[in-house]
């Protein structure tokens, strides 16, 4: 909520400032939006996220002047949006809808984009050279200039949507509303369009986008509004809004939220419903590392088995999964060798378990103790070996020797599925 609070009570803003104040919208029976509050500043990219029917589109419609709220007020630069003539409003605000009417299809791309200029043309007036220049620029920005003389009907869905975005840009708006404008497009085109959106925002345009895809929203928005059943349940920076608790509340699903290692954007993975079945009292212990433990932990938990894990450091994605499932875990700080305290905790978990799984992890001086602990499992140990140990050994041959001994005495699997099957039958 931080960003919103800073706004305080100040009324007057610069050009292109939208304010939504205590807005309620009803359809015949349903309460589509309840007490919505929002202030949008120039240059800001705001993502509206939430499940279907949560009120994203309703909010877009209300702001764009086509769905008058029953309660509350929406202002643009301090003036009620519903008191502004459509033409004047269209000079400042453009909307890209989800899809376009088919009656439109005989117009050429250029004609359609030129229509974006109509709010700027006087009644009975004609297009000026400036109008054509702006149109040309919009065509180029959205990379549809090469289709200028083609009919809309001849384009693919993605190209068509870019044309509609070009038309919105031709309006030279200060505020751009996107109502799931990219939800039907290929991922590559989505990225292109949102890259464009970022450039527009950099030039001072405020963008409000209803976005279905949480990862896309997390990657491109400065700020997110999470809606659920007509209520804005969270408003703020991406990391404030996309928490596991919020996602569970709005979507009713579990999610894994982490920073993506490459883009540093938040990445959300939705997980299947986690309903532990009849947990057996017998536990399977997984020795994780470098993300190799996660799929095994996930698979075993999904089978309804009781799982423990260790030793894992807190920066490892295996740790996230273990934490997510709330399993017992021996945890070490990042970049530290396994301390004897944590090691003995791990050994205890191993002794309690009836099967111990050693995944295809790498070994270095820091986690060599994990391999030593595995040796204590004796014939309870099963190994998943996807690549030869030689390629995974970063100790001076110590791990290889130890691993070789272990390998002699226990079952070795080369595929995750067969390993899980074995564990399941062994316990079940």
């Amino acid at each position, binding site marked *: 909520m931080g960003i919103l609070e800073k706004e305080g009570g100040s009324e007057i803003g610069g050009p292109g400032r939208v304010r939504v104040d205590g807005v309620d919208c009803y359809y015949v029976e349903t309460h589509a939006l309840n007490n919505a509050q929002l202030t949008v500043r120039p240059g800001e990219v705001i993502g509206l996220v939430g499940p279907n029917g949560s009120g994203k589109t309703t909010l877009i419609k209300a702001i764009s002047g086509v769905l008058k709220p029953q309660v509350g007020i929406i202002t643009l630069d301090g003036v009620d949006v519903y008191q502004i003539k*459509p*033409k004047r409003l269209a000079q400042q605000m453009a909307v890209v809808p989800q899809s376009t009417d088919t*009656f439109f299809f005989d*117009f050429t791309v250029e*004609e359609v984009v030129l229509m974006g200029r109509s709010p700027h043309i006087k009644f009975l007036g004609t297009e000026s050279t400036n109008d054509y220049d702006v149109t040309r620029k919009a065509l180029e920005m959205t990379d549809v200039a090469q289709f200028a003389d083609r009919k809309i009907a001849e384009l693919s869905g993605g190209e068509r949507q870019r044309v509609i975005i070009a038309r919105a840009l031709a309006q030279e708006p200060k505020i751009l509303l996107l109502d799931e404008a990219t939800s039907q497009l290929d991922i590559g085109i989505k990225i292109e369009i949102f890259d464009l959106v970022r450039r527009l925002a950099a030039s001072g345009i405020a963008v409000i986008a209803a976005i279905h895809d949480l990862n896309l929203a997390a990657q491109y928005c400065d700020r997110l509004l999470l809606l659920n059943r007509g209520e804005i349940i969270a408003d703020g920076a991406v990391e404030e809004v996309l928490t596991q608790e919020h996602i569970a509340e709005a979507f009713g699903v579990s999610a894994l939220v982490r920073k993506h290692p490459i883009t540093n954007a938040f990445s959300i993975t939705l997980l299947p419903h986690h309903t532990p079945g009849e947990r057996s009292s017998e536990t399977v212990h997984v020795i994780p590392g470098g993300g190799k433990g996660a799929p095994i932990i996930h698979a075993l938990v999904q089978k309804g088995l009781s799982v423990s894990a260790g030793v894992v450091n807190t920066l490892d994605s295996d740790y996230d999964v273990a934490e997510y499932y709330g399993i017992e875990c021996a945890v070490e700080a990042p970049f530290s060798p396994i301390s004897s305290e944590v090691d003995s905790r791990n050994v205890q978990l191993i002794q309690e378990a009836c099967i111990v799984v050693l995944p295809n992890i790498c070994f270095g001086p820091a986690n060599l103790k994990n391999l030593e602990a595995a040796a204590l499992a004796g014939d309870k140990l099963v190994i998943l070996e996807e690549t030869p140990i030689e390629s995974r050994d970063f100790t001076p041959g110590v791990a290889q020797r130890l691993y070789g001994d272990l390998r002699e005495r226990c079952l070795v699997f080369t595929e995750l599925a067969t390993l899980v099957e074995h564990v399941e039958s062994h316990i079940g």
Partner: protein
Amino acid sequence: MKRNATLLVLAGILFASVVIGVAVGPVWIPPQKIAAILTNLVVPTNRTWSEAEAIIVYQIRLPRTFMALLVGAGLAVAGVAMQALFKNPLADPYVLGASSGAGFGAALVISLGLVSAIFVPPAAFAGAVIATFTVYALSMIGPRSSVSLLLLSGIALSTLFSALISYLMFVAGENLHQLVFWLMGGLWASRWEYVEITFPVILIGTIVIYAYARDLNLMLSGEESAQHLGVAVENLKKILLVTVSFVVGVAVAFCGIIGFVGLIVPHVVRTFTGPDHKALIPASALFGGILLIWADIIARSAIPGSEMPVGIITALLGAPFFMYLVWSRRKNIF
């Protein structure tokens, strides 16, 4: 450029059609003679024609041909406006109840014996406005109108007005003949006084609709999109529905119910002008004029010694075309 060339060609065809419309009839009057008779109205020329020929040209055929031109143009432009407003290729004044409403208004005063240019047009206009706005009001959901409801209520209201007209015919007595002939749609009664009323109404109506050509283009992308592009949608609908009611009212008042012109013409014209209303509206006006002049020529020459109501010809052309439209679009609708 291409647009202007199209309009020029259509204007040329229209001019030729007017000449032929005046020349053709039980008595053939060659174009040179027509030119001479008309020139004589301004500058006295050598007489090469009989008094009867002058009367046929000036008092009978010329007003009739002009009337065909005006009514054809008016109905075509009304059809263009309605198809764009309701984003429906099957919309026209006839389908949406405006024609039957106007017909009922006119039939009511005619059955009361008030057959005059003073009473019939206002009554027809009132009927058209009532029908159009009833249909419009019935189709409103919240602050907007729904297209499918609009068409359904148009059909319902058309049926209602047709029943009322039938009732009027049933009880008409001595006015029956007049009522029936008028109702079938015909141009035979055309007189200069009618042209004098029809001309300004249809000219102004066409200009008003043309003034909103840009907005009509935007309407094609959907009402919300149109509004997002600055169109005051509900205002536009009201202005154009009143305008269309005037045009249809005056056409029906003098020529009865002539169906399908408003439906066919915009579709045919779109095939060579494209969807842009800046070209579509003037081209439809010209083409509508041409179509009705020729329909009238056929109506009065098909059966020697007698003439058919022109509404029969337009219906014979229009109904199969309507079926063709349904056929060709059945994949796109639903």
